[in-house]
């Protein structure tokens, strides 16, 4: 596994850790989600260009389209939460625990 691949996988792991361990804002979780998808985009592009797999050149772009849709849904949910509570603190999401 070359250094470039390790670099991109480290970026993915950093974003994943940020998604799993955010402290108070829901927005940072959404940002880390976008970071993960970005690192996947770069990894896919590198792999496909490196192996001259020309037929798969479209794949990262399609990945980006669906990731953008997902981000839109995430933002819409964030806005719904902001409507109810005024902030996006995750401590507010405690209605369903009992």
């Amino acid at each position, binding site marked *: 596994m070359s250094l470039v691949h390790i670099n991109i996988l480290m970026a993915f792991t950093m974003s*994943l850790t940020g998604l799993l361990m955010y402290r108070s804002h829901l927005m940072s*979780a959404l940002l880390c989600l976008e970071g993960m*998808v970005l690192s996947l985009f770069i990894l*896919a592009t590198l792999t496909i260009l490196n192996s001259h797999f020309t037929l798969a050149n479209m794949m990262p772009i399609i990945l980006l389209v669906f990731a953008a849709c997902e981000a839109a849904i995430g933002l819409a*949910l964030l806005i719904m939460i902001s409507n*109810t509570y005024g902030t996006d603190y995750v401590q507010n999401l405690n*209605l*369903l*625990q009992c």
Partner: protein
Amino acid sequence: MNPFISIMLLSTLILSTMIVTISSHWLFAWIGLEMNMMAIIPIMMKKPTPRATEASTKYFLTQATASALLMLAIIINLMYSSQWTIMKLFNPTASILMTMALAIKLGLAPFHFWVPEVTQGIPLTTGLILLTWQKLAPISILYQISPSINLHLMVTMSFLSILIGGWGGLNQTQLRKIMAYSSIAHMGWMTTILLYNPSLTMLNLLIYIIMTFTMFTLLAQNSTTTTLLLSQTWNTMPIMTTFTMLTLLSMGGLPPLTGFMPKWMIIQELTKNESLLLPTLMAITALLNLYFYMRLAYSTALTLFPSTNNMKMKWQFYPTKQMTLLPTAIVLSTMLLPLTPMFFILL
């Protein structure tokens, strides 16, 4: 909800699962799973209460993480095999990552924390879709990659699911959370046998879907969401108490009822593969599940909770809610055991 939007969302939901099950390209399977998530979130937010918003957010975060992990596993598989066909994976790292991503999507322990909370926050019929239809897509992918799944990881996750599904449901009175923990335990049973005989995973999934559909439809008749409300069904629809009790006992896996069939087949396959401790522990832990089903059946069909005399003399109206497929589902979830040879050969 506007009928056009409702049709569009339902058709996207059905189409997305069909895309996942019939695709042979990893990108299409991933796209199908994304569409699945995108279609069900507006369905969960039909009534935009704070609980539904919170449930949708938790569902979205877990499923989006799982999608990104799945895509990473797909790209690592691409790096090591340079092909996109959905078959066994060619790298142990990719296999472990994909198994964990699909476990997050299914709600297997140790990734089960979202299932009770999300099921609690959404209406009963949406909960039905969440616990039955949403399981089809990830299990179809697990079925296709089953030759390359790490045995230790899978057996650990499934046994942990059975334990947590059993113990977690013991302290609940909210019926949707009980159904969520029941779902976790059944997913555990399904994934235990995945590496030995994947057809039995499909059989267990089919029987589980029939039983859960029956249970949710029975609950939706009276819009009961707590045990207390369930204990009042003797008053409004007395025959439902019998059906509820039979369906609950079937879900617990008692012999002359259908729910015994998958458990029996799974234990038989596991013992054929010379693992004796695991099926013993699984069978014993299934008793925990049976205990809280029995508790529900007891409060529904076998005892009357204390109530005022006014409540004992209700007008018995004709039911106005549509009982979609309820008689068929009840018969299927209680009387299918004699047809075991047919299922065993078919699947």
